[in-house]
């Protein structure tokens, strides 16, 4: 129960998931922990789904995650749940979400692991000819859970986002925030490819009007309309990119890629904007 709570809220009621004994931290809301555990066992007959439903439908979970200065001063870490959770997505969630936003996600289930794009030379195993072969077609866009996992050479972008190497039982991941993560979502070909798919989606939904494209794309990411200020910032970026790609054909073709119908300057500029949109804090954060 404590772990499910952590999955939703970012921190367990007892923060030390790995240790609820004398060495761990005491729960912040013992009564809640007891109550929900009791519900899970006796009322829901161990149905995780019903427990999750109770949690996500609670007023606590549905609160706004905005901080006021008062909340910041009184409860920076949201231990007392006077606001909704606000945490960065995990490595796997990030991949799945970005694939979904970009409309490239494959919902295919089951079967052996797949090999999404990974740079050359990550696997260099001695004594055998094992090679990472980038998967073709739909398999390139499967959910993170299907990514082939080799414990001595794990998928690098997931490791950068605090993924576990799976060599030791790890009850809790420690969330960090580093510049190497920025490089993944900005430059990793897998993520760039998602930006191209996303740009193609926006182009198709609202052809010809950049403001609408940005608004539609933002709504797809955030389920809410974009503010005028944010739209202007992204539009300015688009204009800047457009002026470059109108003059430079080679860059235009390289940036647009094959996912858009035609590598026009507009398409290339929209890929740059899509890449930026997929890097926004509000997109990589759950709130």
């Amino acid at each position, binding site marked *: 129960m404590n772990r499910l709570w952590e999955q939703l809220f970012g921190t367990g009621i007892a923060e030390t998931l790995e240790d609820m004994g004398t060495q761990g931290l005491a729960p912040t809301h*013992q009564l809640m922990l007891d109550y929900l555990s009791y519900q899970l066992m006796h009322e829901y007959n161990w149905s995780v789904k019903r427990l999750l439903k109770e949690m996500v439908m609670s007023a606590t979970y549905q609160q706004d995650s905005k901080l006021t200065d008062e909340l910041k001063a009184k409860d920076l870490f949201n231990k007392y749940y006077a606001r909704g959770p606000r945490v960065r997505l995990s490595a796997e969630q990030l991949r799945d979400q970005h694939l979904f936003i970009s409309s490239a996600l494959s919902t295919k289930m089951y079967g052996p692991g797949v090999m999404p794009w990974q740079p050359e030379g990550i696997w260099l*195993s001695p004594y055998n000819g094992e090679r990472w072969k980038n998967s073709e077609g739909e398999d390139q866009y499967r959910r993170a859970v299907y990514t082939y996992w080799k414990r001595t050479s794990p998928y690098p972008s997931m490791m950068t986002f605090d993924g576990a190497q799976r060599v030791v039982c790890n009850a809790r991941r420690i969330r960090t925030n580093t510049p190497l993560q920025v490089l993944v979502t900005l430059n990793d070909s897998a993520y760039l490819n998602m930006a191209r798919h996303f740009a193609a989606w926006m182009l198709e939904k609202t052809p010809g009007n950049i403001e609408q494209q940005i608004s539609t794309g933002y709504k797809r990411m955030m389920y809410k309309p974009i503010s005028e200020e944010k739209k202007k910032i992204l539009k300015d970026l688009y204009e800047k990119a457009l002026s470059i790609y109108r003059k430079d054909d080679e860059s235009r073709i390289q940036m647009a890629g094959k996912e858009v119908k035609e590598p026009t300057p507009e398409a290339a500029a929209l890929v740059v904007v899509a890449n930026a949109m997929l890097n926004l804090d509000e997109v990589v954060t759950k709130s």
Partner: protein
Amino acid sequence: MTRDELNNQRLLKEAEDAVRKMHTRRHFLKESAMGLGALAMGSLLAGCGDKTKPLTGAAFDPVHPLLPKAPPFAGKARSVIYLHMAGAPSQLELFDYKPELAKMDGQDCPPSLLAGKQFAFITGVPKMLGPQAKFAQHGESRAWVSEHLPHFSTVVDEVSFLKAVTTDQFNHAPAQLLLHTGSPRLGRPSMGSWVTYGLGTENQNLPGFVVLTSGGSFPDAGKSVWGSGFLPSVYQGVQCRSEGDPVLFINDPKGMNRDLRKASIEAINNVNREEYNEYNDPEILSRISQYEMAYRMQITAPEVMNINDEPAYIHEMYGTKPGKSCFANNVLLARKLVEKGVRYVQLFDWGWDAHGDGAYNALNLGIINKYRSIDKAITALLLDLKQRGLLEETLVVWGGEFGRTPMMENRNGAQNPYKGRDHHTDAFTIWMAGGGIKRGHSYGETDEIGYSPISGKVEAFDVQATILHQLGFDHEQFTYPFQGRPFRLTDVAGKVIHDIIA
């Protein structure tokens, strides 16, 4: 009192406890760099036993996990360059001179050496194999070095040899893990992770723990030898490469120039600032600074990783091959990285597994190329660090994961086609230099055929304890709480080798 009243009383007490805990926590966070913190702090601060006692030498700040920290006591070394010859080089052809072994060349191995022993490949009764090299004494320290390392033999007065290192793992992967993580099984943090966890790093525009590999393969243990184990994954080694992207994903995609990348990062940060105005969450500010840092890293890292701008005499000195991936290039890079404030640089050079089952790994053929590929570079590293005044604060370690047998390898009862030696756990040589290590010294001795230590026997834990000691840590106090107990790099063993400390 009724049950309800009792329960309420208990809840009240717990709430008060929690408030107290929060108070100390916030107090701690205010003291730390930015006064921000993520959600992960609690258990990291709560060590075993006395929960008010801070972790020795390290407090983890998830927002600035790599800021430089002072060690518990003043260390001599500021950074480490660890040169690991993956596959295990032969001590008998390089540093451990055994004229008696030459006399036994070709004879059957005495049964006393085989009784109760298990080898990786040797079965039955192998032949003894004399040293496949001529030896001479060098420098004022009169250190024995073979003809295979003519350059290195000129700098022996800078180093301390450990001639009687032992291990209990006779396969590559577990032996490498033992040496670098303190356990032959997967899952423990590597030494570089411990060190960056404890000390942070001095240049925030570069990773703190850099790994460089050469020889065409990774070490057998794979990336686990630079993994962060149970430490936060921000402390894992970051592999940098002299071919392809120097740091993974550091280069902008094709078609995006620097100007446009700058504009796009500015746009991202401006939108994030809008978001901050709305949400007021300090984590957003931290994300903004990470994007700025990434942009700077994109400039810094390729500069540091580019060896082309080094003067010709440096290339000559190291024996580099610009544009290719090789050990010498990596050694030069290691010097450049340390100079720029990187804390721990780990090199792995694969291809030292001198079994003699093919010409490529024969002691008298293929392995000679390996000697040649490192000789100039390791020599140049010591001289170059010295001329830059960096050797005093940079600890350089060279070695393999185990040694090689004085017997010639026979596989499945038959002699191998080329001259080779099997894995040997009982004796091998590691040397250290700089970072407060004695100059021109040798510690430990093996018997007259280099089979077993007769004095100064040390093990992997002792090497680890010594490295941590030179960086300013007491290896017994430097712990991390995991699975209900404090863990340390040296597990429950390890003695600092004071004999080689200046």
